[in-house]
């Protein structure tokens, strides 16, 4: 037998990890780059570098999007899409604003209840997609309106009151402690990726019928993915309420789109089965940095969406191009 030509091209574990996580690496690079630009523009405008205060507000303002991005990732990995993310955030944000109260016991109980409401919303989506054989985009577009409608019923006018203690716990204004939640989320993802559910999510996103041929229950996996997604969206609603110290049944709307943006920037494939929630979390921070940059560059807020869109297209093209290059070599 000849010496095997292919064996010699075998890569090390590290080399594989690098080549197989191009999306994540690009997200890191984009984050570093956007932070650098942000610092430069901030310096030009203010004559000093951003400090602890800016870090804290950035983290607190981004956490809801981080959670929404994780929620979106779970669904996108199954080769679906969840347009109802914004609706779930609206609804859970509204419930939190009127229900949280002042006592610790009530706060804990209501928080858990809110997460369960989110899970129930996800269950509805999941069942309709898995058993109704409907397109995820249609199902979640419909449930988006439903959840928004219910949210308005729960909290017709912006208001409610979130206790200081709650804000301190989830969106502490005096320091970037919420970063711990982001770390916790990354750890949760690390674990989830190593469960039967996590593997099933990737498997059905890759090829549903092939996954089923090897004993993966596609329906069950999908339903659980949507449920878990709903739960993370609900957590986003809670963080949003804590940060705003009040509730508003419409502030969640924008999260549907921005969560998709974050997912794409984070290197998660919209065709399913590829990418990681950690990338999507970085994508959420990149999104915030872009907004910050545009703000300090004194871009007319009317044009903000235009530039955000431009940046997104550029980032996606870049990511695609570099990904292909790495693949070929």
């Amino acid at each position, binding site marked *: 037998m000849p010496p095997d030509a*292919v064996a010699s091209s075998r*890569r090390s*574990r590290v080399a594989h990890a690098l080549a197989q996580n191009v999306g994540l690496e690009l997200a890191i690079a984009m984050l570093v780059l956007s932070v650098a630009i942000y610092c430069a523009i901030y310096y030009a405008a203010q004559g000093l570098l951003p400090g602890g205060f800016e870090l804290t507000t950035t983290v607190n303002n981004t956490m809801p999007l981080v959670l929404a991005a994780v929620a979106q990732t779970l669904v996108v990995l199954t080769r679906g899409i969840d347009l109802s993310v914004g609706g779930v955030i609206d609804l859970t944000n509204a419930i939190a604003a009127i229900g949280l109260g002042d006592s610790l016991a009530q706060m804990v109980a209501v928080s858990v209840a809110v997460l369960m409401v989110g899970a129930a919303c996800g269950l509805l989506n999941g069942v309709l997609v898995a058993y109704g054989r409907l397109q995820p985009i249609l199902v979640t577009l419909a449930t988006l309106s439903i959840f928004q409608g219910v949210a308005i019923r729960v909290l017709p006018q912006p208001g409610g009151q979130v206790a200081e203690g709650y804000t301190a716990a989830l969106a502490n204004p005096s320091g970037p402690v919420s970063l711990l939640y982001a770390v916790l989320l990354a750890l949760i993802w690390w674990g989830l990726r190593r469960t039967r559910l996590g593997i099933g999510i990737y498997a059905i996103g890759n090829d549903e019928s092939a996954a089923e041929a090897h*004993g993966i229950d596609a329906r069950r996996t999908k339903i659980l993915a949507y449920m878990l997604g709903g739960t993370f969206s609900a957590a986003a609603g809670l963080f949003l309420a804590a940060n705003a110290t009040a509730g508003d049944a419409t502030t969640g709307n924008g999260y549907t789109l921005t969560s998709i943006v974050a997912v794409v920037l984070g290197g998660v494939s919209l065709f399913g089965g*590829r990418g990681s929630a950690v990338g999507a979390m970085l994508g959420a921070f990149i999104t915030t940095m872009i907004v910050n940059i545009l703000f300090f560059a004194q871009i007319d807020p009317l044009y903000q969406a235009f530039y955000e869109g431009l940046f997104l297209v550029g980032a996606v093209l870049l990511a695609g191009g570099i990904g292909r290059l790495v693949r070929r070599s």
Partner: protein
Amino acid sequence: MSQDVPAVEAVNLVKSFGGVRALQGASLAAAAGEVHALVGENGAGKSTVIKALGGRVQPDGGEIRIGGRQVRLPAPPTAHALGAWTVFQELTLLPGMTVAENLLLAREPRTRLGLVDRRRLAANAESVLAGLGVHHIDPRALVEDIPLAERQMVEIVRAISHDPRILFLDEPTSSLVEREVVWLFGQIRRLRAKGACIVFTSHRWNEIRSIADRITVFRGGRDVGCFTELSEEDAVTLMTGQRVETFFPPLPAAPRAADHRPALEVRNLAAPRLRPVSFAVAPGEVLGIGGLAGHGHRELFLALFGAGRATGGQVLLDGKPVRLRNPREAERAGIALVPEDRKSEGLLLPMSVRDNLSLALLRRLSRAGLLRRGLERQMAGGEVQRLKVRTASLAAPVGTLSGGNQQKVLLGRWLLTDPRVLLLYDVTRGVDVATKHEIFELMMRLAGEGRAILFYSSDAEELAHLGHRVLVMREGRMAAELRAPGITAEHVVSAAVRDAA
């Protein structure tokens, strides 16, 4: 258990897909300790029977018995529980996941916390592969990054690693080269000696002859006989219902190199995994390219079609240098490539046969930017007839055709572009004997018309009979040049594996 009870039995299975009657009373019985071959034309229903026995397709009528007992197989895991594992014709690997994840899907090693132990996952996969004598596949690579032949091996290893009592292999050798086929047959013999029942399909008669204990022939969705001895000629007659040539057609006279400027000339072409190679193909010449998987021929073909990255060298068509930066440039220059993996590189499975056939021609079929549907239908219809594609209609989605018929559509698409240089990459993969013969004749006719043909085949027999010359590649370079007449399959194989030292 009694010796007479078949290990697995299909009795009068009936199955229709929409209006297509794939099975109309198909029966098959295979015993323990037996290798049972299932043969038939493209579209005869072989894969459908195997899918029914593997739990992937629900028959409309008939019975399935395993170990003599009637069973219902609503999904593959039910068959797995009965010890029956299947390698389906269209592979069921997850492309974006690693080889290890695929091999050990749903049986991953766990840590004490119950989480998947990814380190051991790769190690276990490595030992599963090594335990079956496969050393060259990297368990940490993504499935989409490894060549088709390796993917096929992973799929086979996955099935065998479950130590099946019944193993179905649907065209397992279609993308394997000689050496890998030898490996597979070794495994099949080992399983047979342990008393397993193996059912396999193949369009290569020498494989069937060398390993099958019994042969069941299918025609038009039903079985037409089961034999212990059967000549290729008789088999083909049974399969097609008529007498058909099975010999290799004669090569047209070799063009004298001195008479012509080469139609295609390659000078020091280099690409990843491809050392600089140089060769020329004269008009009317058929040049075979041989070699084991991973030794550079794939890269060579992709570079010539502008689909892969060439890192150096020059390509000349009729003496003029051409740039081949993408497939469109290649197509305009008059080069056509029929690729290896029809699923991911060629066909748009959900689109119709007609659309798939006309895809490479859209420019020529349009007037003022509008597609001339009538002309399109006429050309597509002609090609379907010429290649005898079995399809319900021109409007049927290509994904519903049998594997061999999909391959014919892909070939037809490129023939329609009337290319100057035709690159054929394993085009007879999964094509039945009768059609293979037609394709060979077509190749010779195309060469006779003065086109240059460069073809790679994983079947050394084809290379030996169909090339005016055969270049054998090893480790990215041309290791040997063989000239007709007098080339044998053994020459090709030994040139491919000969130690470089």
